[in-house]
């Protein structure tokens, strides 16, 4: 369960910097630019985003910025378009209006090369062992099976999965499956992580454990991440900053900084005064947005 605090093993893959500079303006868009300790590029910048399915307007006039290395939590009522937002950012779906830049890259294909997407369902392949599921992206990039396993192996140790490398997904608990899905996302080696309600399908106790686990994992990895959830507590506990979205069509209604002090055990964190007042503000914003 506990992770040792060593350097991240899954370094983000270098993306085409030439494309970045060609796109230009990446520093201006992200604000912090290259000033961060980890040269992550320019995070995520969304300007005037709008998307509809048929006549159903899902997202409207949405502006969002994620600083490099920052974990942004996005909460919103069910069905407000949070998942669509992540699909748009990742490049899986092309937006109808507005601009999205990930690390300064604007086209869907370039964004797809920079974003790792973790869906709500673990989507582990039942015919592959846990370690081969985690190392899927390495295999896709041409690594041999032995090579991919060698790279993935230390992460199993670090993320509390040692001994389960050869287990089949069907033999693992829901929490373990989600951890392997998270490893698979990490090992995609992309600078930006997009997490779409990663623990929605877990029971409350496992979910609390996994939130603690994810907060630590993201702290050691320090990648740019967007966590979408309907759970205010989860967003406040795991993220550096939380954006509350309105009901459909989604647009931001509140911004909250993560309550201080950070990096407490979950139980201490969620009962601290800063946390409870932040949660109340978030819930107020949510119910205001749902009206």
């Amino acid at each position, binding site marked *: 369960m506990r992770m040792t605090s060593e350097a991240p093993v899954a370094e983000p893959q270098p993306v085409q910097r030439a494309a970045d500079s060609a796109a230009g303006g990446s520093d201006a868009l992200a604000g912090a630019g290259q000033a961060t300790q980890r040269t992550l590029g320019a995070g995520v910048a969304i300007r005037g985003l709008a998307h509809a399915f048929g006549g159903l307007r899902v997202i409207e006039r949405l502006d969002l910025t994620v600083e490099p290395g920052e974990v942004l939590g996005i909460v919103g009522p069910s069905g407000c378009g949070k998942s669509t937002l992540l699909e748009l950012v990742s490049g899986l779906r092309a937006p109808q209006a507005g601009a999205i830049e990930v690390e300064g890259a604007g086209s869907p294909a370039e964004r797809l*090369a920079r974003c790792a*997407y973790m869906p709500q369902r673990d989507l582990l392949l039942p015919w592959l062992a846990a370690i081969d599921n985690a190392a899927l992206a390495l*295999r*896709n990039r041409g690594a041999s099976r032995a090579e991919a396993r060698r790279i993935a192996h230390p992460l199993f140790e670090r993320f509390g999965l040692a001994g389960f490398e050869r287990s089949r997904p069907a033999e693992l608990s829901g929490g373990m499956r989600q951890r392997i899905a998270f490893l698979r996302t990490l090992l*995609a080696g992309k600078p930006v992580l997009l997490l779409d309600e990663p623990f929605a399908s877990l029971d409350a106790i496992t979910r609390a454990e996994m939130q603690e686990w994810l907060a630590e994992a993201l702290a050691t990895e320090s990648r740019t991440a967007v966590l979408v959830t309907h759970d205010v507590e989860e967003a406040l506990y795991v993220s550096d900053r939380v954006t509350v979205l309105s009901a459909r069509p989604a647009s931001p209604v509140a911004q909250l900084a993560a309550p201080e002090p950070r990096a407490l055990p979950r139980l201490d964190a969620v009962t601290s005064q800063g946390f409870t007042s932040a949660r109340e503000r978030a819930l107020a914003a949510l119910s205001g947005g749902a009206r």
Partner: protein
Amino acid sequence: MKRWLPPLAIVLALLCAWELAARLDVIAHALKLEPFLVPSPSEIAQALWQDRGLLTDNAWVTLQEVLAGFALSVAAGVSFAIVLHLSPTLRRAFYPLLVASQTVPIVVVAPILVVWFGFGIGPKLAIIALICFFPITVNTLDGLGSVDPDLVKMMRTLDASRWQTLRRVEGPSALPYFFSGAKIAVAVAVIGAVFGEWAGSSSGLGHLIQEASAQLQTERTFAAVVVLSALAIALFALLAALERRIAWWGPNGTRS
């Protein structure tokens, strides 16, 4: 063990009834036939033993035809399914033709194929492949198409090429479907071999049945039919066992 008792009891009861009816000439009288034309199960069993050399030789010929024809249609069917899966245009173009190929009566085609390809193994392979091709192609194609779209999306975010998605996700997902088709195909392949042999051949179980029934050797005819069914059942069971081993994540797998 208990699972096998009910079917075994039914088969035994039917055999006993047949045996009695044949011995008492009930069937022969009812059909106004000479009694020797209606063999009892014990007489068929006797024929099985007496003609064992003849039956094994001919069964071997038929088995070779079935295996070669089946292998041919697996190779062709799976390749065709993959091509149609990758190209929606080709799929739309060829699918009606694929269905149409099943409406052609094999009994009619068989003699034409013999005219074209001669009396060798060629026309038998063509007939078997023609019959097996459809269930294998259609099932594999359905399997490839029924993959969870979220899995395909996930592979895109993991930098997979079209081919890698096919190999790592769509192929394994389609494998249980392929086996469903292959199990149907192998059972009908045996029937296809008989048609092929009837249309023109000098050996094989189908040929033996034709010859024996022409000479009113009904015990031998039945004995050949028994061997033929046993062959089909054995091939089906073999594929089912393979499916449990290879596609163990599917509905018929050992673990799911």
